[in-house]
Each structure stands twice: as structure tokens, then as C-alpha cells.
């Protein structure tokens, strides 16, 4: 039995490996994507183009403007004298933020009154606008503090960022890429496997061999698992060696979880494959499933922000659990109990999907 399974796996792997283009497509994309996407995925804002609209001639407003321009978050690129100019520049995205200082700003500051200033933001990118507001509030807060050095603030908020003290975006995104790149690969390979045999008519040949349905399933599942694991580890190695991420958890534990995770990917792929008549339908199934799986996992935006139904749907998404485990093991040495709490839903998904796929193969045999 073991010999038969090994022969089937060898056949599958040779099928993948013999075509140079397929070979390339399995190995190169993960590398390219790691490099490009790890650098792109940041919600942070730096050098936001800032316009200055200063109606005040005093020294206080000049100081405020100087502080904005000196901040790494903003870079002053234009100054305006009228609302029409401001509108045109914001519309055309020449500037994303405009600091407006009214005429009596310096006078108010010197007289001890509360001085007014306005920040106009291009909120077409709402998240960046929110971030820019935060930076502006900090600059203005420090400035107000420095104006009255004798009044100490009534309350100091000390913040500490655990697990990622410098708030590096790559630390956040790379563990996510480990999950996503391997998912796409294991899904695609397994989804095409049965569908290809069926489209080419070789499925019947496979069925008349002495292989039992379970053995066929194992042979069809393993290439997806192997390639998925290779892809995941390419990202892990790149994250540790090139991007210098810390790894605070247990590496064998991560590998075990990745194995379970690729099993769920392969399970879903095989179910799609057993439903599809042609490779094209199988691929369509992958495309339609993969995108929601990625989005609902919390890879791009936190799950808590989702409406209830989307949150509910995300519970059937293996990526959600693997994402917690990968981020937890890379950055925070997540305790075993917490990891296992995320692992059992994945085990359930793997078991269900593989059973369904197995039944489909058995039905085809009889």
C-alpha cells in the first residue's frame, strides 16, 4: 500500500516538476511577492505633502509652521493666501493637508486666550487622514505645552508598544504573507489535480488501478502540502534573514501548525476539484474562494471592525487562525494553550473538507 502511494505521489510531483514554466511559477512568485509586498504594506504616513495657509504675521504662528515643517510626518510643499488656492491644491492632490492659521493667532497666544487653528485634510484616503490628525495633534500639544512651561500637564500618558516597540509594518505583514502565499499555492495545486485528470479523461484510468480511494486522496493531497510548505518556509527564511524579524516562539510548533494549515488549504482545494468538471471551473473556484479567505482572515484589516455576518463567516476561514498563530509565534512567544485554541478549528476544517473530498472520490469509484 505504501509503495502504491509513494508511486502516486512521485507521479504527481514529476507532473509538476517536468514543465520548466510550472517549476518557475512554483518557486519565483513567493520570492518576488515577499520582497515587494513586505515593503508596501504600511498604513503609516510619512512626508505627507503639507500646504501652509498662514494669515497671521506674528512670531507664534511662524513657530507653529516651523514645527509642522520640521516633523518627519509632514513636508511643507506649498503656501497659500486664499481659500480658492487651497481648494484647487487639495482637489488636485498637490497637498494632502493644509494648516490654516487665522489672523489673530499670535495675539491670542500672547494674551493667554485659547488660540484657534484649522487643519484641512484630503480624506479621500480616510486612514491616512486619521493618521495625519494624530501627528498634528501631537505637534500642537507639544507646542501648547512649551508656551506655558510653568504649567505642568495634569496627566501624562505613558505608552508602551509590546512585541513590536518600533511599530515596524514588516513585522506585521510578513507573518501574514507566510500564510497567504502558501494558501494560494496549496489551493491551486490541489484544486487542479482531480479536475485535470477528469478533463483529460485519465481519472477513469486512475480508478481502474489497484489504488483505493483513500490512497488516491493521499496521493493527490501530498503535492499541494509539500509545495505549500516549501512556499511558507521561503517566506519564513526571508523574514528571519532578510527582514530580521524576531522569532520568539517555538519553530517546530510553527512547522506543525503550518502542516495542519496546508492540510486545510489542500482539503478546500480538493473539494473544489471534486466539484469542478474542468480545470477552468476549478481555478475559478479558487479565485472566488481565495480572495474572501484572505480578506476575512484579518490580514488587511482587523476582524473586530467587520460587521457581524462577515465576522461569522471568518470563523470558517482557516487563514484567520493561522494568522493569529503565525503572528503570535513570530512576535510574542504565544503560549501553547493559546496556539492549540486556534489549532482545533483548523483541524476541524481539514477533517471536514478531506472527508467530503474522500467521499467524492469513493462515489466516483463505485
Amino acid at each position, binding site marked *: 500500500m505504501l509503495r502504491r502511494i509513494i508511486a502516486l505521489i512521485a507521479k504527481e510531483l514529476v507532473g509538476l516538476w517536468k514543465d520548466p*514554466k510550472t517549476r518557475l511559477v512554483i518557486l519565483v512568485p513567493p520570492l518576488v511577492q515577499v520582497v515587494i509586498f513586505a515593503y508596501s504594506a504600511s498604513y503609516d504616513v510619512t512626508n505627507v505633502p503639507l500646504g501652509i495657509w498662514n494669515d497671521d504675521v506674528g512670531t507664534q504662528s511662524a513657530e507653529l509652521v516651523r514645527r509642522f515643517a520640521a516633523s518627519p510626518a509632514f513636508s511643507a510643499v506649498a503656501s497659500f493666501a486664499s481659500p480658492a488656492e487651497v481648494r484647487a491644491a487639495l482637489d488636485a492632490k498637490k497637498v494632502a493637508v493644509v494648516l490654516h492659521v487665522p489672523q489673530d493667532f499670535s495675539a491670542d497666544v500672547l494674551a493667554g486666550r*485659547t488660540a484657534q487653528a484649522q487643519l484641512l485634510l484630503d480624506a479621500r484616503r480616510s486612514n491616512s487622514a486619521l493618521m495625519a490628525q494624530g501627528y498634528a495633534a501631537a505637534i500642537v500639544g507639544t507646542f501648547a505645552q512649551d508656551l506655558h512651561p510653568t504649567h505642568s500637564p495634569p496627566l501624562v500618558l505613558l505608552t508602551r508598544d509590546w512585541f513590536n516597540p518600533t511599530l515596524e509594518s514588516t513585522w506585521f505583514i510578513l507573518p501574514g504573507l507566510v500564510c497567504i502565499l502558501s494558501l494560494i499555492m496549496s489551493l491551486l495545486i490541489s484544486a487542479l489535480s482531480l479536475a485535470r485528470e477528469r478533463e483529460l479523461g485519465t481519472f477513469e484510468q486512475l480508478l481502474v488501478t489497484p489504488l483505493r480511494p483513500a490512497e488516491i486522496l493521499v496521493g493527490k493531497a501530498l503535492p499541494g502540502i509539500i509545495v505549500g510548505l516549501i512556499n511558507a518556509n521561503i517566506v519564513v527564511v526571508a523574514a528571519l534573514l532578510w527582514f530580521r524579524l524576531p522569532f520568539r516562539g517555538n519553530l517546530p510548533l510553527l512547522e506543525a501548525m503550518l502542516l495542519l494549515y496546508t492540510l486545510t488549504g489542500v482539503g478546500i482545494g480538493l473539494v473544489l476539484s471534486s466539484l469542478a468538471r474542468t480545470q477552468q471551473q476549478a481555478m475559478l473556484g479558487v479565485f472566488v474562494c481565495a480572495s474572501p479567505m484572505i480578506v476575512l482572515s484579518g490580514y488587511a484589516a482587523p476582524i473586530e471592525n467587520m460587521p457581524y455576518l462577515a465576522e461569522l463567516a471568518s470563523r470558517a476561514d482557516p487563514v484567520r487562525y493561522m494568522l493569529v498563530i503565525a503572528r503570535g509565534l513570530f512576535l510574542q512567544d504565544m503560549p501553547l494553550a493559546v496556539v492549540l485554541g486556534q489549532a482545533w478549528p483548523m483541524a476541524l476544517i481539514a477533517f471536514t473538507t478531506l472527508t467530503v473530498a474522500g467521499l467524492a472520490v469513493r462515489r466516483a469509484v463505485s
Partner: protein
Amino acid sequence: MTASLLRLRGLARKEIKQILRDPSAILIAFLMPIVLLVVNGFGISLDASEMKLAVVIEAPEENARGMLQAIDASPYLSVQRALSTHDGEAAMIDGRVRGMLVLRDDFAQRAGRPASWPAQAQLVMNATDPNTARILEGYVAGALQVWLAGQARERRLAPIGGIDLEYRDWFNPELRSADFIVPGIIAMVMTMTGTLLTALIVSREWERGTMESMLASPARMVELIAAKLGCYFALGMGSMGGAVTLAIALFGLPYRGSIGPLAAAASLFLIFALGLGLFISTLARNQFVASQLAFLTTMMPAMMLSGMLFDIAAMPRWLQFVTYAVPARYLVSTLQTLFLAGDVWAVVLPNLAGLGVAAVLAVSATLVVTRRRLD
């Protein structure tokens, strides 16, 4: 010329029949965009609400309780009392809360005499998600400001001349993240649909050899490609119209521009995407490679490099140059402006030019590759 037109008409009829007979084209053009738009539109939300925060108060008394109330009143925060920092840490590690606010036992003493001893509150956050951590920090600081202002009013303290900074968020005053993200999702969905329509369907024709037999017919290659592009173009425009309608009807987006620039941007982008799909299918000889390439060149770049989610200006400079080669970038920028700001020609025209270049490049690359493949 008339012969060419006649052949073109015949080819178009053949393509339409083929589309109607094989449901996958209709599925790609209509079912997939709807699924993707709905799931992504509801799934990607950056509007944080009810972020869970553990609060540890070492010595409960009036000041600390007042502060707790102020934080609890914030619509963005959901407070959970923790008995000790140890409990709070545990909740933070297993993800039950995003952060922990600690008021030490000397908080009351210090809060009572603010002039000499500023009171301290400690905010510890799980920064595995840096964006969320930063937003949480902003909300906690905001809630504390509200509390302090209330305290100052209660004690009738003379306001020390501070600075009041007022925010005016143009185009999206409530900072709804859907208004920002849904136009990007339309661009992502259109990249995928457009490219898949041709990549998958035509790669199967190559795999089965029906493409070669078509090319052996009297129809010229340009006519063949024009017929294919034309039919899928009509399908793609239909799905684009559906996506825009869905964005307005389901997600409540405003549409402040006019139809003309939208149609122009959508057409140019579709020609690019369909051309790219033809190019991929011609280059890759089998469906597996074609689907991998389609995935690699459409979904991930459209999501990560188009400015749909992540701000291009914050990327490293070399990567900013790379984004110029991602046509989804031009479409995202155009759509965001047309939906939220209106017909701002200074933004729309350069982006249309970018889309035009992409369309020309994709179609000519297809012609070159197909010609070479036949030799």
C-alpha cells in the same frame, strides 16, 4: 475592407455563441465581481469601533472611577476591568484585549495635586498590529482629554491659553473607510475579472489547439484578437457598471463626478486587463501557469501596490517607481476622485494618460507574442 468587416462579424458571432454556451465567462463577469465586492467591501473596514481595552485600577477611588467612566463613554473603546496587571497581560497575549491601561495606586494622590505632580497613566498595547495600536492610542488619548476638560470645568480652573486645533476632513467628513476602500475594491475586482476572462478562457483554447486552428483560418490575427477583445470588453463593461451600481446602492457611496471620465477610465483599464490576460494565456502554454500568472499579476499588486489600502507616498522610493507599472494605481486614484471629489481634471487626466499607455502596451505585447508563437 468589406471582407475584413465580414470576417470580423463572423468572428464576433462565434465569440458570442461561445460565451453564451460556456457559463464560465458569465460567471467570471457577473458572479465573481458581486461576490468579491460584497465580501471585500464588508470585510475590509478600517473603522475601528469598540476596541477592547483592559483597565487595571490599583487603588479604586473617585478620580480613577471618573476616568474609567470617561473612557467607557467613548464609542470607540470597550472597557474590561482587570484585577491586576498580570490578568491584563494574559488577556493581551491571547488576544482578548488590544491593550491595557494601568492606573498605579498613587494615581489619586497625584491627580489631586496636578500642579506639582503630574498623574501618570500607563497604556500598554499589543503592537503586533501596529496600525491598530496607533489608532487605539489616539482614542485613549482623546478620551483622557475629554475627562481632563471635564475636570477643569468642575474645578473652575482658569483655562491656560491652549491651542484649539480643528479638523476639517474634506470629501469624507466622517472618515468612513468604506468610502475610501470600495473604489479601490472595484479596481481590484476589475483587474481580476478582466484578466481572468481572457487568461483562463484563451489559455484553454491554446491548450486544446483550437486557437491554432482559428489562426489557420483566413481570419487575420488582428481581426481575431479584435473580435475576442470586443466581446469580452462588452462583458467587462457590463460587470463594471454592476460594480459601480452596487457601490452606490449597497455601500452608500456618493458619486460626485460625471459619467464620461468614468466610462473612459473603465474602457482603457479593461482594454489593458483583457490584453494582459491574452498576453498571459499566449505566453503560458497551460492553464495552471496561466492561472498562477494571472493571480500574481492581478490580485496581489492591485491590493498591495495600487494605493487601494496602503499609501503609495509612504512606500520606499524604489517601490513608488514600481507602482507606476501597476495600472490599477491609475484606476484607483481616478475612482477615488470621481466618487468622492468630482471631476477634478488635474487628477483624472494624468491618470487617464497612464491607463492609455498601459492599454496600448498590453495590446501590442499580445500581438508580438502571438506572432512569435506562430513562427
